[in-house]
């Protein structure tokens, strides 16, 4: 009988996330159904950011829609993403 926890983990997306303030990237695993905003804010918190208006930017500088799920935003296994604060100016 398959271990349910293991099955869930096998369906997670593993991504490499960079943050500007840290020279070293970190690996994260997220359910594909998690939203970009939730995942980005979680990753940001792990890097020590205390604000919560983050998204991910791809290597081609595409900024992912925070409201989409990771799957719907096109996030693939092993993708390299960079945190970006979506705050604007005034």
């Amino acid at each position, binding site marked *: 009988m398959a271990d349910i926890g293991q099955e869930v983990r096998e369906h997670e997306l593993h991504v490499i996330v*960079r943050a*500007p*303030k*840290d*020279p070293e990237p970190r690996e994260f695993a997220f359910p594909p159904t998690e939203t970009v905003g939730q995942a980005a804010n979680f990753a940001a918190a792990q890097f020590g950011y205390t*604000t919560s*208006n983050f998204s991910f*930017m791809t290597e081609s*500088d595409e*900024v992912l*829609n*925070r409201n989409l799920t990771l799957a719907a935003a096109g996030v693939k296994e092993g993708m390299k993403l*960079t945190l*970006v*604060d*979506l*705050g*604007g*100016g*005034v």
Partner: protein
Amino acid sequence: MLPPLVTRAQLETELPAITAWADRYGWRAEVEPASRLVETRTVHPAIGVPLAVNADCAGYPSVAPAWRFTDQAGDSPKSAFPAPGARPGINGSIFHPNGLICAPWNRLAYKELGGVHDDWGAVTCWKTAAPRYTQALTIADMLHAIRFHLLVSPGMMT
């Protein structure tokens, strides 16, 4: 004013992240902890003209750096400043039409230092000012925000 040695130590601590960030995006970054200056060079992504954006970090991190786009003479005319661009989901560019990086992490944006914002409190409260807008607490994060807004800038101010 914060002792220069404190700022120097802070910049030395941040140097690996600044260097890594600049290498990743092809920017040239020179950090001079002793003089408390950060000088960066890139090109405008839409029109390819060289850009220089520099930070005077005196007092950092007690106060935010003073960020300026400069020309070859080191002056800050509007012509050295990127035009603001729009991006879905962002509530406004940090490139203010008056030639100022309008962000709580730029001390030049504060009214008490000649900027436009008298609603952000004291310049020493920059880390918690304007929470609904761009936030960046390290030099690398500030450069990342500048690049983020530069990516949708249509050109230079005239």
